[in-house]
Every structure is written in C-alpha cells, then in structure tokens.
C-alpha cells in the first residue's frame, strides 16, 4: 500500500500546500527592465552599447584632442597677433617720440613753415590715434582676462595670476599712454600757439618722461606676452597630460560600462537560468514548492512559466495520487476490519462497491464469505440429525452391551435344556452346544470317538427317529433363525417399534415350546441310544471341553465390540457437540437478514 517514496511525496505535497498558502516573499530587488526585452535584441544591445560607448569615448577624446590642437594653434595665433600688434604699437610710440622731436626741431628752425608744422602735428596725431586704437583694442579683446579658459589653463599649469598681471600691465600701459598723450597734446598745442620754448620745456619735462613711461609699460606688456608663449608650452603639456589621464579614465570608464552592461545582461540571462536550474535541482531533491521566478517577457520567462505550469501539473497529479491512495487505504482498512470481523465470526460486511482493486478484492471476499456462510448454515442443519443418530447409536450400543453381558452370564448358570425366555442371536449356537453337551453326559467312558463314528451314530439316529424330528427341529431352528434374523435387523432399524419384537418373541416362544416337545419325544427315543453314545459323548465332551471356551470367547469379543461401538458413539456425540458449539459462534441470525452479496463486476 505504502510506497517508499510516499513520505517524500507527502512532505512535498504538504510543503506545496503550505507554499500555496503563504506566497513566497519576493525578496528580489526590483526586476531589471531589460528582462522585458527578448534575448536576441538584448544581446545586440549588450554588444552595441559598449561599442557605442567606446566609439563615443574615442570620438570625444579625438574631438577634444582636435579641440586642444586648434585651441593651441589659435592661442599661438592670437598671441602672435597681439604680440605683433603691440610691437607695432611700440614702433608707433617710438615714431611718435621721433616725430614730436622732429616737429620741435622744425618749429625751432629759423623759417618754420606753418604747413610743415601742421603736417608734423597731423602725423603725430595720426600715430597717436593709431596707437590709441591699437592699445585700446588690445585691452578690450586680447587680454587673458577675456579668455577665462586660457587663463584657467595657465593657472593649472602652475602660473597663477597671469591674467591679473597682464591686465595690470595693460592698464599700466594705458595709463602711461594717456599721460603721455596729454603731454604730447600740450606740447603740440604750445607749438601751434607759437610758444616753442614752452613746448620744448614741456616736452623735456613731461613729454619725454611720460613717453619713456609709456614705452616702458608697453615693453613690459610685450615682454609679458612673449613670456606667455613659454607658459603656453607648459599649459599645453599639462593639457596633454590631462588628456592622457582623461583617455585612461575614459578607457577605465568604458571598461566599467562594458562590465556593467555585461553584468546586466548576465543578470538577465545567466542568473535567471541559474535560478531555473536551482528550481529544477530543488524539485529533483523533492521540494515541489520551489517555483521559478516569472519576471519579464523574454524566452527565459516563457521557459520559467512552462516549468512552473509543469510543476503545478505534477503537484496536481501527486495530489490526485495521494487522494487515490487515501481512498485505497480507507477501503483496505475497511476490508481489513471486515476480514477481522469475519474472523471473529461476524459476517456483517459493509459493501464497498468500488471499481478499484480493493473494492474488487472486497467484493470477492464478501462473495467468499457468503458462500462460506451458506456452507456453515448447511453444516449446522446437518449437525442436528447427526447428533440424534449418535445419541441413538449410543443408546443401542449400551443396550446391546448390557444384553450381551446378561447372555454371557446366563450361559454359565442356566441348564442346557432350559429354553430361553427371549430370543437372542447367540442362542442357537449355545443351544446346539448345550444339546451336544447333554448328549455327552450320558456316556461315562471318556472314549475317544472319532467324528466319523459319531456321525455314523447320529446318522443312524436320524435315519430312524431323529431324522424326522431333526427335520422338525431344523425347521423350527430355521424359523427361530429367521426370527432372530428379523430381530437383528429390527435392532438396526430405529423406526421399528417394539411391538414387532414382542410378536416375534411370541412366535419364537411357541416355536421353542414345539421344539421342546419335539426334543422330549426324541429324548425318549434317544435315551437308550444315548447311553450307548455316552461313552462316545464323554469322549466327545472331552473334546468339546476343548471348544467349550469358544462361546465365552465370542461373548467376550461381542462385548468388546459393543464397548468399542459405545466408545465411538460417545466420541461421535462429543464431536458433534463440539461442532455444534463451534458453529454456534457464527452469528447466523444476523446474516439471515442480509443474505445476498453483490457479485463482483
């Protein structure tokens, strides 16, 4: 009934039941949205994305490199331009100084023409305007302060404050130029006013020093810009180093990104496959509650769902099996109790009409029990007459034994001629023997007579008188024997009443009387011859003594036989009683109420 795996299945089943009730807590983190994408696009994504990232990074680095190059070149270009402009400015300043002195000299000349002076003045003013424009343009556009990324680069390159210093120098150049310009204008004004001496004095006292200042300041600015080129070198070196670092970082980042993407893809593929495998493993080890996590909308999800459905089906089958098994066990238990009841003699069997093997077995059992019950009933019915018969036989045997004993006793005590009051089977032989013995008493001489002589004597006797009497006696004896035969048969039959016996006895008595008379008659005839025969009979008596024990032996055998029959009859009765007692254990009364059983189908 119980299979070896039954416990495992039971456990699994119950665990499954428990699992159904308490839904597995989803300890997993929020599912990866990637698992909604089929595997093929995901793999493509996994390969494309790192490639894209790598390409992007390479592009960015290349772009930056190009930018750096262009930046560097534009930087140099700008520096060169500003440097050239400032150098031009320097020339302007120097030319201005020369021109102012030339103008003064022209004015000092004895015949200074006003046109010449005006031309000189215009030349100076033109130079001044150009220089002013140039310097202001430089200050407004070319200062590092207007190019924060460049000044930041210098800061990083270990040259902080360059922009500030440049601005200072530029403002210094501007201020000195303004002062010089004012002085110059005053000088020119004095010249135009004809105050050549004053102009000369002013030029010497204020124009020349301020011009020197302006020149000095401008040269410092030019020098500073010249120095910037070497700083640019440092800055670009630094930038190249930064770019190298950036490239390395980018490579690392790309690797990390590829790793992350790989990890994501891995997480959405291998980990879930592992999970599926773990479920399969768990089921293999008997844990039927284990279920695959069904996340997303990809192929693995479908497989996981299929596995879960399969497991559900299996569990359902197991439940069904378990239910069937329970039913079988129940039926078997019932059958077993029925069998136990039947063993205890109670034939009340609940009818389990199932189509399963147990039901069929039960039906077969009940069918058998029905048959057995009918057999018992029949046996019980047979027992009663058997018991009666045993009783009767016992009684008869007892009677026969008593009679035999009485007869055996009587054969020793009664005289040989005395007729028997009641007929018995052993009487005829006893009578013959006794007659023979009485014949033998007449003879004194115990002469050995041969049987042939005796027979011849008897033949002689019978030829004269005895023949007829003997026939009569024989006839009587035959009748007696017949009656005795009837009596014997009567004793055997239990239905024959005693009246017949009495009738037979009467007939027998009458016959015996006749026989007695016949014997008396023949006795007289015989007396004379008996004397003759005495001697022979004496001898015969001797020989008959030898056989005198034979009737006693017979009686003894008969008694033994009767005793044997009695004993057997008693045993038979005891057995019959036992059988009855045993059969009485079966509760047939209750059975009677439910006599039929359904036959197995």
């Amino acid at each position: 009934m119980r299979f070896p795996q039954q416990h495992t299945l039971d456990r699994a089943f119950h665990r499954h039941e428990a699992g159904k009730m308490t839904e597995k807590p989803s300890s997993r983190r929020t599912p990866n949205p990637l698992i909604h994408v089929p595997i093929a696009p995901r793999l493509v994504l996994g390969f494309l994305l790192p490639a894209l990232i790598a390409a992007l990074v390479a592009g960015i680095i290349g772009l930056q490199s190009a930018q750096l190059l262009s930046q560097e070149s534009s930087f140099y270009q700008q520096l060169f331009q500003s440097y050239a402009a400032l150098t031009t400015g320097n020339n302007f300043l120097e030319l201005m100084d020369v021109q102012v002195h030339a103008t003064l000299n022209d004015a000092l000349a004895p015949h200074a023409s006003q046109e010449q002076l005006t031309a000189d003045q215009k030349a100076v003013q033109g130079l001044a305007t150009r220089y002013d424009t140039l310097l202001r343009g430089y200050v407004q556009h070319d200062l590092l302060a207007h190019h924060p990324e460049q000044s930041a680069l210098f800061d990083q390159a270990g040259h902080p404050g360059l922009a500030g210093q440049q601005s200072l120098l530029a403002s210094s150049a501007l201020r000195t130029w303004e002062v010089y310009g004012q002085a110059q204008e005053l000088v020119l004004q004095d010249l135009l006013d004809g105050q050549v001496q004053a102009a000369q004095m002013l030029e010497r006292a204020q124009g020349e020093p301020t011009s020197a200042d302006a020149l000095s300041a401008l040269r410092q600015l030019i020098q500073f810009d010249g120095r910037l080129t070497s700083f640019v070198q440092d800055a670009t070196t630094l930038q190249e180093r930064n770019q190298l670092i950036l490239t390395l970082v980018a490579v690392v980042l790309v690797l990390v990104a590829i790793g992350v993407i790989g990890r994501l893809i891995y997480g959405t593929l291998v980990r879930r496959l592992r999970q599926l495998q773990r479920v399969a493993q768990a089921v293999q080890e008997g844990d039927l509650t284990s279920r695959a996590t069904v996340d997303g909308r990809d192929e693995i999800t479908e497989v996981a769902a299929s596995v879960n459905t399969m497991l559900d089906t299996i569990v359902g089958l197991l439940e069904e099996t378990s239910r069937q098994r329970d039913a079988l066990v129940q039926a078997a238990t019932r059958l077993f109790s029925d069998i136990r009841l039947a063993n205890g003699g109670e034939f009340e069997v609940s009818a389990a009409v199932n189509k399963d093997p147990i039901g069929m077995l039960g039906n077969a059992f009940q069918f058998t029990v029905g048959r057995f019950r009918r057999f018992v009933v029949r046996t019980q019915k047979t027992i009663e007459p058997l018991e009666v018969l045993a009783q009767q036989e016992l009684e008869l045997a007892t009677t026969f034994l008593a009679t035999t004993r009485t007869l055996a006793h009587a054969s020793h005590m009664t005289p040989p001629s005395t007729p028997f009051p009641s007929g018995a089977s052993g009487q005829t032989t006893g009578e013959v023997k006794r007659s023979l013995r009485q014949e033998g008493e007449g003879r004194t001489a115990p002469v050995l007579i041969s049987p042939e002589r005796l027979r011849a004597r008897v033949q002689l006797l019978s030829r004269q008188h005895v023949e007829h009497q003997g026939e009569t006696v024989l006839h009587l004896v035959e009748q007696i024997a017949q009656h005795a035969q009837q009596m014997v048969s009567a004793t055997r039959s239990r239905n024959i009443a005693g009246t017949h016996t009495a009738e037979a006895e009467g007939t027998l008595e009458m016959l015996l009387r006749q026989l007695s008379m016949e014997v008396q008659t023949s006795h007289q005839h015989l007396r004379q011859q008996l004397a003759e025969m005495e001697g022979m009979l004496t001898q015969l008596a001797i020989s008959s003594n030898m056989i005198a024990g034979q009737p006693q032996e017979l009686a003894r055998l008969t008694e033994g036989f009767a005793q044997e029959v009695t004993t057997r009859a008693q045993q038979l009765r005891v057995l019959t009683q036992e059988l009855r007692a045993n059969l009485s254990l079966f509760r047939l009364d209750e059975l009677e109420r439910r006599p039929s059983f359904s036959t197995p189908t």
Partner: protein
Amino acid sequence: MSCGTLGGSPGSTGTLPSQNTRGGNTALVHIAGSTALLPLAAKAANLFHQHYPDVQVEAQGGGSVIGLRAVVNHQADIGDSDIYADPVLYPDPNLTDHIVCVGAFTLIVDPQVGITSLTTQQIIAIFTGKITNWKEVGGPDLHIKPVIRPNTSGTRILFRKYVLGGLKESGPTLTSDSSTAVLDAVAHTPGAIGYVTTTLVNPTVKAIGIDGVSATEHNIQSGKYKFWGYEHMYTLDNGIDATTAFLDFMQSAQIQQLAQKLGYIPVTAIQIAQQR
C-alpha cells in the same frame, strides 16, 4: 650673484631648491628700493620666511631709482620702484616688471595750516615757489615750506608727472629719500607741505586732498584722484625659484589683503577699475 640655472617648476611648495644661495643652505632674496613699498615688502618678507623657512628675504629701502639700479647691477634680486624703468636708462630686455599693488600718495601739511584741500594749480604754484604763504590759499598767515624729496625718489617723480605736469619744484631738497624723513620734516616744520605714501600718514601730519578729492581707494578706482602709482618689483633674472615664488607670493590673497590693511590698494581693485 646667482649661479643657478633654470629648472624646476615655480615653487608653490614648502621647500624651494636653493638656487640663489649666498653661503649656507639658505636661499636669500634681496630686495631694495622704494620706501613707499617697503612696509609691505618687509612684512611680506617675514611672512614668506614663515612659509618657506629655507628662504630668507631681505627688504631694504633706498628709493626707487636705487632699487632699479641695484637690480640692473645684480646687487639685488628685486628692485622695488614707484616709477617705470626707463628703457633708455635700463635697456636690458630681461628687466621684468611685476606690479604688486597700487600706492596712493597724498599731500601732507603741518596740522597748524588747517586746510583740507588744494587745487592742482595751487599745488603747482606752491611747489614752483609762486605762492609762499598759506594765507594765499585760504590758510593762516604762515610761510609755506615745501619739503622736496631728492631725485632718486620715485614719489617725487610721480608727483612731478601726475600732479605738477612735468614742472620742476623749487626750494631746498631733502638729503635722503625716505618717506619717514618727509613725515618728520612736515610734522616738525611749521607751515611745511610735502607728499608721502598714504600708508605712513599719522596724526602728526595732516593729509589734504587734491582738487577736493582725497586719496581713497574709491577715488583712485573711479579715476578722480590722480596722485597714485603702480608699485613695481623689477627683476632681471627670471626663473629663479625663490624670487619667482616670492613674487607669486606677493600676488597671493594673503599679501593683497595685508596690502589693503596697510593702506595700499590691492591689484584686484585696480583690475576691476580697468575692466569698467
């Protein structure tokens, strides 16, 4: 003076290679020149030595022209100056200007004079000897005694360029170019007038405005006040680590704040003014 070659990055670290050593392992940076910049230079030298114990910075006065000459003649690493180095006098193209701050100057008078401001014309008249009594400019009847600094004074040159318009002062000049000497002279001479850096102004003298404008940072930034000059630190051998480090240190926020505290105008303020 220095036998060191160029090398290493400009020092911003705690230790510097001793390239301009003058005996021993300690690098020495010698500063000479403007007395107007001396207070800041001296304090900065001490602070720098605290930051870089293996660098000793010596700051001396002497006047702007002395400082420039010292640098050109390799007698000093740094020459402080209120004035520009004339390319004619100092033609070395390696002479490099480092503007560290702006020095404001003011006219100071004997407190007895009791005026608060003079016009540029009045100043010119006073220093050229056309006005000799304070009562002519609204002051007490007191003889004006201008204190004229020697020719090596950067302050005097600035005064001539930016206030006097190139005119020459007349009168006795002081024998030594020292701002403190001017201060003492003005403080102890009745009716005296002089000019000095605003950093040294103390209650013994009275600072007066020019054209009604006093020497404040705001007035200089806005361009109303003209008696001011860039404070230069000239160097000849660029790339000496200790010197470069000191010059960078001069540009640092710490020194610029210190300069402001001492009465100078930090470069940042001037830059902002220029940007406007």
